[in-house]
């Protein structure tokens, strides 16, 4: 192997690793706050990517309608929960979040789908659609199960993944799609060529990680989310609603998932079920980080990306096997370090 190939593989690995880092961070966040192992994170990737590609191609994505339908169900859930204490501001908030928001996004999407707007508009709409789906999914599936065990939450999570994957096939078909690049410019440094899309991946990933760091470190809602992750009962005792924390966590996770998809769909052809595999690689990084540590997850994600790049060069048939095998020594080491972990009880 010469230096050019080595640098090229490193560059490729870091680009993929940056995406896995975003997904891994979202998985850690959702697990820390809600104890949900978010298997459908991969579907957020697919939905984001294919919604963006559909809009760019001038097609109306089915995800915008799905957001309205499940928003309606979420609103019905909220109304049922509030039936005994009809509190007008809360009903108005539920209406705005669950129904008015996805309907407004649907109308905007219908208008944009006919117009062939710039990629930036498709990007924002795709993020809003998937964010709305993420919020409603939390309300319908995970909020009612919030007090159950991690195992029950995991089973529900698998169910949501399968349902979303099936709907993905319905909305986008079995054919793969590609989206337009966000940046067309490119630069050359020595023997390395940096494409605009590659730079967008680096830039947006770094901006998002810095943004999350500022959100958690400086804002009251970010601190409330951390507090819920550290001590759920303590958070409730100061008046932080765990449902609010769950909503914020799912909002961030679905947005991050969709953004990751939008970043890679100009580089790779994505199918309705590709997101699952991408999400799993973020999951490996999250597991290496113990589903707790954000910095360790980010570093692990870069390692996963680089190992994947080198495996596809040396043994492309075994690429996935090598990447997923990374998990075994980590799990072995972790099980030796902490032989018994009792599940947290409320």
């Amino acid at each position, binding site marked *: 192997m010469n230096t050019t190939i080595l640098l090229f593989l490193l560059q490729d690995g870091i680009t993929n690793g940056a995406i896995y880092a975003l997904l891994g961070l979202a998985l850690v966040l959702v697990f820390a706050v809600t104890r949900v192992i978010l298997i459908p994170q991969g579907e957020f990737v697919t939905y984001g990517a294919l919604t963006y590609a559909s809009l760019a191609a001038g097609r109306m994505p089915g995800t915008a309608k799905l957001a309205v339908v499940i928003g309606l169900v979420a609103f019905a859930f909220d109304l049922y929960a509030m039936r005994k204490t009809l509190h007008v501001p809360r009903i108005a908030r539920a209406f705005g979040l669950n129904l008015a928001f996805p309907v407004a996004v649907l109308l905007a999407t219908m208008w944009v789908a006919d117009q062939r707007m710039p990629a930036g508009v498709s990007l924002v709409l795709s993020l809003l659609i998937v964010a709305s789906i993420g919020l409603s999914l939390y309300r319908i599936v995970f909020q009612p199960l919030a007090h159950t065990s991690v195992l029950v939450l995991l089973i529900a999570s698998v169910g949501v993944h399968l349902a979303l994957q099936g709907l993905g096939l319905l909305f986008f078909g079995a054919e793969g799609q590609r989206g337009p690049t966000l940046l067309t410019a490119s630069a050359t440094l020595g023997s390395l060529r940096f494409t605009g899309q590659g730079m967008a991946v680096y830039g947006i990933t770094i901006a998002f990680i810095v943004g999350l760091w500022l959100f958690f470190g400086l804002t*009251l809602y970010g*601190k409330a989310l951390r507090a819920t992750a*550290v001590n759920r009962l303590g958070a409730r005792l100061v008046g932080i609603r765990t449902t609010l924390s769950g909503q914020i966590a799912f909002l961030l996770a679905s947005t991050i998932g969709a953004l990751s998809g939008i970043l890679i769909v100009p580089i790779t052809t994505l199918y309705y079920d590709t997101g699952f595999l991408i999400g799993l690689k973020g999951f490996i990084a999250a597991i290496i980080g113990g589903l707790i540590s954000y910095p360790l997850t980010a570093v692990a994600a870069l390692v996963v990306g680089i190992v994947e790049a080198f495996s596809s060069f040396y043994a492309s048939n075994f690429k996935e096997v090598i990447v997923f095998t990374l998990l075994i020594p980590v799990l072995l080491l972790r099980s030796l370090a902490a032989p018994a972990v009792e599940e947290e009880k409320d």
Partner: protein
Amino acid sequence: MSTLLEVSDAHVSYGKVEAVRSVSLTVAENEIVTIIGANGAGKTTLLSAIMGVFPLKGRVAFLGEDMARLEIEDRVARGLCLVPEHRELFATMNVEDNLQLGAFRMSKAHAARGFEHVYTLFPKLKERRKQLAGTLSGGEQQMLAMGRALMGSPKMLMLDEPSLGLAPIIVAGIFEIVAKLRQEGVSVLLVEQNAKAALNVADRAYVMELGEFVLNGKASEIATDPRVAASYLGFAEAAAS
């Protein structure tokens, strides 16, 4: 004095085991009420159930409003606050963040006044404001737990074993603060195993045994009751004579 908290015929169960049986109590405005009793009597369970942590059969009313359908967070919003036995601090966050989250539902101006108030009551917390809560000493953690609760400007504070595991000098300081809170218009429902200290600071007291109240009255009268003296104050002979 009008009634702030009214608990009537409360029952709390863990599965088939009834930990609290037919308990009724009241706490008025500007009043310190204590519940004393041996370990396992059901004091902590009762306090947690009043806060909504466990389901409770019976009626809990705060400022005349039935609390049955309210979640913990709604009870906090009404002005009811619990400082639990295990403190439930945000261990990996610093003192200042813990306090700030205590005022989660309040405006920024209110939180600023809250910081000033809490740092005046507990100057040690100001010195430690950048230290992680999990690395504080037991006494400092208790101060932080109380300070965090006070940041939300509660009308009533429920303190569960605030003296547990603390050095006597720190316990004295904690009880001084409890007395100060009454002067500031905060009512206190205090659960304590340190019966002597609790009865000294309280206006009224309930004695709990095996999930039931067996005695209640003015704290000064309870303190001189021979049964209480024998069981909880450790001077049976003196009381008998």
